[in-house]
């Protein structure tokens, strides 16, 4: 973490590591607490390790940004239709940690958050579908609401876990990234996932998940790669695809 960079990506927002600063809020997305236990249940016996990593990373970001308000833009925990023991424990301690360090906490509901309110309500934290902030509508992005009800020119979503795969020789590294493009007449920002078990899905080569993205071409979307607090503006998807074809 020698060269800390923040990169303005929209008028009122800048990238700080894997989070987006909008006004005096820090926006994170897709933590997927409890992922390990879910993997354990599928037979992948990796020990729990990401909770600690998430807290360490968040601490660095808050120290650096000095922000006191935080928005979790959906998918705080991993399981869909239930809540596991690991999730009970980790979601609770994570929210308590936030209460200790932040003056305001906003929880946006993601598709994995059906049972999150059981824990958050006990701690008096309410969960909502979206929030409007500095001309931005922040929402998880797994479904498209009736946009006529909202006039914000910018949409900020998570859900997609975007990353790009860089291939050279036999080496392949995936790097998490922010995306900036359009959805209909609005500006669209996609935040990478704040979890450390998976890099996410390679938006250059895999089919997309979010209804905001999977019915349009990403060719003109701009890609901002992020690796340990460094931001790498890569240009548009179309250009990356053309350029990286030369590095096979």
């Amino acid at each position, binding site marked *: 973490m020698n060269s800390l960079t923040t990169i303005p990506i929209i008028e009122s927002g800048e990238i700080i590591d894997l989070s987006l600063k909008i006004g005096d809020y820090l926006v994170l997305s897709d933590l997927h607490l409890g992922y390990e236990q879910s993997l354990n249940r599928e*037979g992948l016996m990796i020990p729990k390790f990401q909770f600690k990593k998430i807290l360490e990373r968040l601490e660095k970001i808050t120290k650096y940004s000095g922000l006191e308000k935080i928005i979790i833009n959906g998918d705080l925990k991993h399981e869909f239709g239930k809540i596991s023991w690991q999730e009970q424990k980790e979601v609770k301690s994570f929210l308590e940690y936030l209460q200790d360090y932040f003056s305001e906490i906003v929880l946006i509901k993601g598709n994995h958050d059906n049972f999150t309110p059981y824990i958050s309500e006990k701690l008096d934290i309410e969960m909502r579908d979206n929030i409007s902030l500095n001309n931005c509508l922040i929402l998880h992005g797994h479904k498209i609401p009736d946009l006529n009800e909202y006039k914000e020119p910018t949409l900020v979503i998570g859900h997609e876990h975007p990353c790009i795969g860089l291939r050279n020789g036999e*080496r392949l590294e995936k790097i998490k990234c922010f995306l900036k493009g359009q959805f209909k007449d609005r500006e669209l920002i996609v935040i990478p996932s704040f979890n450390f078990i998976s890099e996410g899905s390679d938006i250059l080569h895999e089919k997309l998940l979010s209804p905001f993205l999977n019915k349009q071409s990403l060719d003109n979307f701009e890609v901002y790669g992020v690796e340990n607090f460094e931001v790498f503006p890569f240009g548009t998807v179309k250009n990356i695809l053309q*350029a990286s074809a030369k590095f096979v």
Partner: protein
Amino acid sequence: MIQKQDRIYSSKEIFANLHPWVSKWFKGKFEKFTPAQKYAIMDIHQQKNVLISSPTGSGKTLTAFLSIISELTSLAQKEELEDKVYCIYISPLKALDNDIEKNLEEPLREIEMISGKNLGIRKAVRTGDTPQSKRAAMLKNPPHILITTPETLSILLVAPKFREKLSHVKYVIVDEIHSLAENKRGVHLSLSLERLHHLIGNFTRIGLSATVHPLEKVARFLVGYEYGQVRECLIVDINYLKQLDMEVICPVDDIIAADPDETNTAMYHLLDDLISHHKTTLIFTNTRSGTESIVYNLKKRFKENYNQENIMAHHSSLSKEIRLETENNLKEGKLKVVVSSTSLELGIDIGYIDLVILVSSPKSVSRALQRIGRSGHQLHEKSKGRMLVVDRDDLLECSVILKNALEGKIDSINIPNNCLDVLSQHIYGMAIENKWDIDYAYEVVKKSYCYHQLSKTDYLSVLSYMAGEYTSLEDRYVYAKIWVDYNKNMFGKRGRLARMLYSTNIGTIPDRSGAVVKCAGKVVGRIEEDFMEKLRKGDSFVLGGNIYRFNYARGMSVNVSPASGPPTIPSWFSEQLPLSFDLAVDIQRFRDIMDSKLSYGKSKEEIMEFIHGYLYVDYNAAHSIFQYFQEQYLFAHIPSNRRLLVEYYTGFGGRKFVVFHTLFGRRVNDALSRALAYIIAKKFKRDVMISVSDNGFYLSSEGKIGGLEAFKELNSENLVEILIKAIDKTETLASRFRHCAGRSLMILRRYKGQEKSVGRQQVKGKILLKFVQELDENFSILKEARREVIEDYMDVKNAQRVLEWIESNQMEIKQFNTKIPSPFAFNLVAQGYLDVLKYEERIEFIKRMHEAIVMEIRG
């Protein structure tokens, strides 16, 4: 003690010992005993361990079974045949199991007819495909001869009721033992046999092998150790070669002068010609993609001769149904030609083949013999094989293979040792059987040839891993598969699901069936997960004889559309078979002889005559070989087993190349070149491009890299240490780690009925690897992955030998500068680079790629 069996028994002696009904059956069926039968039947009768090595079609299986059938017949006559298993037959293939069952049917039925009563000798196949109803039936009426696979055997060892039926086993037959011994399936089997031995005491071990070397090693593998001494075993070696009609063919008169297109066209005409003059032809290539491309080209170039009805591909990436269809069509004689990679090498029944063609070098003598042995499937019929060469290096390689094959010189087999992942599985299995004393279990494990030298530290690290000691105490209940009580010196299983978990997850073949490939909604095949991950938009590849363009991947499914034109599978995605070390050294010896002939100024005629006599090739081929060597000789020097040639040349734009003429096979060169590149990268902080082939390797860089100086820093002592550092961040290690984690049951294939999910697939080998590296540098799975890469994938041991030759001056190093690559370097340089070795951290890699892409975008 391992001994060669040199006593040959007379037919009279053998018949005297066989049950009269069995003798009568045999006499009515065959004229006389084959040599293998004369040597081995009596030994098996006397319950001695035997390894029988003889070519396919020499009556090996009957040799193994005849005594056993005779004994079962005696018991049946006396009505003493119990409801227990007397003999276990193990083969590497389910298809082979099914063939064997069919082949036993006739003798058993006919002997019963001779006896005129109901003998009731049962045999049955039990594999992963056997339905539950049949399994239940087997428990009620166990087969006297159980036909199975290594994996199923290890499951039966923990089956609570069925294992009791194994308590009478007197014979275990391991078929195609050579193909098991050289990989982890064999390692796995060797431990299962020791566990069986521990369960029931001594039994007779019978190994059936194709031509391999050294047989003594395979015999040790078969029988294992007792009280630290290798158990007794007789070796029956009948490698009188089944008469070989074997030739090397050049598709063009002068392979040196012909351009690749010309050679390629000529090759397909030659193939078509050979195929049309035979009834059924089996073509072997070395790779899946090679197989695909030959089917594709024959169909395209000779539309009137080949269509879906008479030509088919057969390789491991095709679905089971397609492969079975091909095998059946072959048996029924419907096909004119089948193209296969390695999948048809083993002895499954494919009917009558009258010609085998090997397109380009099979890379080892034993593989050549095994493949060619698939033709003329009767004992006294010649096997007919043609090796079709595609370039000049290929010509030389195939010629030396021909020489060694005709002279019976076979390359040595490599048997993996101390595999900690396979050990983890067996520790689990053992714990399920009962509680164990830690030291006693260690002794049982060490009876296997593959673990004879296992260190106590490694053994204990596996116990510690299996006990989940890598996780926090409170979470351990999730991860621990066994409990270890160090005070009482005992271990045992944990969890109620242990047996089920073990039975559904054991085995050593990595789950490569990975991703489904779909074209317009229809499944067209499967590709490996690693392969899928590397596919990029615009890539096209061949599958099932058709070309597809990659569109996108989602989870475990790949969407493609039909494409035309040449496939663009990235060149580094090499699945090529490596040249065997022994064969490589023989080629180097030939180079040495040629070197002295040329330096003594022998005439062209004289030398050609020598080549013709020495390599058994025709004059066209001899001429091409002569020319190839003469060019190299006149250009510079001829590298050989006594001279390592290092060639410096400067390519386009001043790029420096250092070519090492190390003809030791790709596995050795992989080890040498990566260790070397690592030293250079550390020293000069410069990118090093690397390319490896069987004949040598080159390193290349923008500036001076001092290849030879760096090479001098490498020695037989420090090679392993440097190589382990060099592979640390490679994809190879990450993907091998994933396989090892699977075998060690850290990644379970099947667990509580859960299928693989997308989320799980995204957790790549690399993330797991990184996590484990942070956890403990000596974690047993990590250690095994490294061992597998440097010892099994690469060949660090022979690389050490090469360095020793240099250290003892048996091999001199000669360097020279040149403006264009020398003839011997040409193919290597032409293949382009394989990898850029940077040993950079992830962040450095990202920064470099970011800069490069941004530069490229700006133009």
